[in-house]
């Protein structure tokens, strides 16, 4: 397990309480609550899970169990510019893996990790419905098509 120690601000706690309250603090709604929390914070640090635990009266161990079970949930914060590389069939056969390797090398991180300065995070996904542009890379909301390993440096430069 890896997670960073954060301190929740008062308004963060209020936000979590508000999310829980919008689901009537119903323990059955745990997954929905976690979805909303991740949408708000970008990830689910331990401290967020603790507040959810207090609101829903679900042991924090159980919440951690759910967070670690579903790959959608993450306890690592996404970078300011989240990078997603499509590893779907079309992108894969057109060299997405080499692109991925180049990103890993340039950023010095693995898939699922965030750079120490919090700027970039790396993830892979399966098909964004733009197979004609394969291989496809997403940085935030921006889409890059027909990406070659040589393009990686230039893409990253745009965000400096």
């Amino acid at each position, binding site marked *: *397990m*890896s*997670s*960073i*120690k954060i301190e929740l601000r008062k308004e963060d706690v209020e936000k979590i309480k508000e999310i829980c309250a919008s689901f009537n603090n119903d323990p059955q709604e745990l997954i929905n609550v976690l979805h909303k929390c991740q949408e708000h914070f970008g990830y689910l*640090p*331990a*401290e967020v*899970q*603790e507040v959810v635990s207090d609101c829903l009266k*679900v*042991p*924090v*161990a*159980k*919440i*951690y*169990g759910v967070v*670690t*079970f579903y790959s959608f949930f993450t306890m690592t914060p996404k970078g300011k510019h989240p990078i997603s590389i499509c590893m779907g069939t079309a992108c894969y056969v057109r060299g997405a893996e080499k692109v991925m390797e180049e990103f890993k090398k340039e950023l010095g991180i693995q898939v699922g990790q965030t750079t120490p300065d919090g700027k970039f995070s790396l993830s892979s996904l399966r098909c964004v419905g733009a197979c004609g542009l394969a291989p496809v890379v997403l940085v935030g909301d921006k889409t890059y098509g027909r990406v070659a390993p040589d393009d990686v440096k230039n893409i990253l430069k745009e965000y400096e």
Partner: protein
Amino acid sequence: MEKVKLTIDNKTIEVPKGTTIAKAAKMLGIEVPLLCHMELHDLGIENKPAGCRICVVEVEGRRNLAPSCVTTCEEGMVVRTHTTRVLNARRTVMEFILSDHPKDCLICPKSGNCELQDMAIRLGIREIPGQEIAEMSTYRKDTSPSIIRDLDKCIMCRRCEMMCNEVQTVGALSAINRGFMAVVAPAFEQNLEHSPCTYCGQCVAVCPTGALTEVNHTPEVLRALADPSKVVVVQTAPAVRVALGEEFGLKPGTIVTGKMVSALRALGFDYVFDTDFAADLTIMEEGTELLDRLTRYLKGDASAKLPILTSCCPGWVNFFEYYYPDLKDVPSTAKSPQQMFGAIAKTYFADKIGVDRKNLVVVSVMPCLAKKYECQRSEFSTDGNPDVDYSISTRELAAFIRQANIDFNNLPDDEFDLPLGESTGAGVIFGTTGGVIEAAVRTAYELYTGKKLGRIDFTELRGFEGVRSATVDFGDLKLNIGIAHGLGNARKLLDEVRSGKSKFHAIEIMACPGGCIGGGGQPLHHGNSEILKARAAAIYQEDRNKPLRKSHENPVIIKLYEEFLGKPNSDKAHKLLHTHYFERKKKIIVKP
């Protein structure tokens, strides 16, 4: 009740609708192997995640094999429990489990008492195909003051999780991760120490393998016994004497008090004393506190809080310190018998024999794992010297006796030493649910009314139901008593107290289902609640065997107050025999 008729292995049986195939088979004398499934029938506790698939059977007309622990019987069903297909599937499942399980059975603390080992023997597993290339999942070992978690040995039966969450409502453990890395752990894979864990040890009591075991303190005890400069005294809790025999093949419920004393003497303890003595002392202090609070309450004193809750059980103390810190002035301030014993042994008794407390080693034998944590609490020590040095469980004592080449079953009966070995039947019944409050009632009645009790057995306070209540007639006062065993049941009564709706004057709580007889340090019951019932019956038998059955009649207790303490709840008694509670909820420490 609606019934269904079915055939299992060519035998026909009619069972109530809703009965599982495994249970119906058992009625026919067919023991389908069960591994993750565990049931304590009389306590309403059942674990049936249908996770291990060892219990699969063939049901005619179904494509897949059915897990018999959860599949219910249907009219006309034809079930076969040992076809080639079933046996092969069962073997494959077992081989998969074993491929990711350490093979260090020879030195495993659970060896000889392990349900996985038994299953491997029963299924005749002789090889584990592909073992050379099989990967093993491995986890960090976690040692707390009471419990060791060695999750490499976890088979994901999830019994501990069920106990911790559904029965005890402690919520320290949960299944985490998925697939190969799935395991049961506290939140954020913290150590147990940083979780809500109460050290009740019920997870250990149900763990089929060596994944959850107790911290072994026998080596320290052995060292103390071998040190000529130390005087080593031992105290034994009431529930130990009705369970220890099981470790030596005796029938559950066999009372082995005399043999246990002999064995302890043979092990080399200088004085063999009884926690029951301290239980009598607890009654004097707790009973007096109850009457004091009651009298003040009836006079309209708003500072007198009712109900009063018993405080003998350290698992329960840990529980309310974590979950009900707002109620921490509600439980009695009386220390547990273990700690009262330690406090008296290291003052009154040490003075009597002229030994410095630093050279007096107090060992306790307990049915409990929380006692290990309790005796390490800093408020129970003087200048860094603990009142109770080491606490070992019933199981550890049994292992110790075996190592010392003692033929337990052929030992003669022996008697406890005086003075701290003298006890009454009231002290004995502390070992089972309802016992502490019954002991308190026996004394409080006579102190309150000034009359002799007509009957000593308050059968209305006994039983195995999770939450019980009774009203005891104290003349002008009808005393309402609540009893809960199992922390989930305790929670129900506590929520009432918190909301001001509790109708009780006094409540007894024991953390373990059944009370101390079902403690986390007892011989393993392997899901047989008959064992717990037999132990409880033995406790009441031992009580009836005692010439004295009321704590305030214990002559050594009377003398202790005359010579040393003054009277119950005196300043000195408060200093030595009472404690205070802390809010235990810690902020999670997140490790990088």
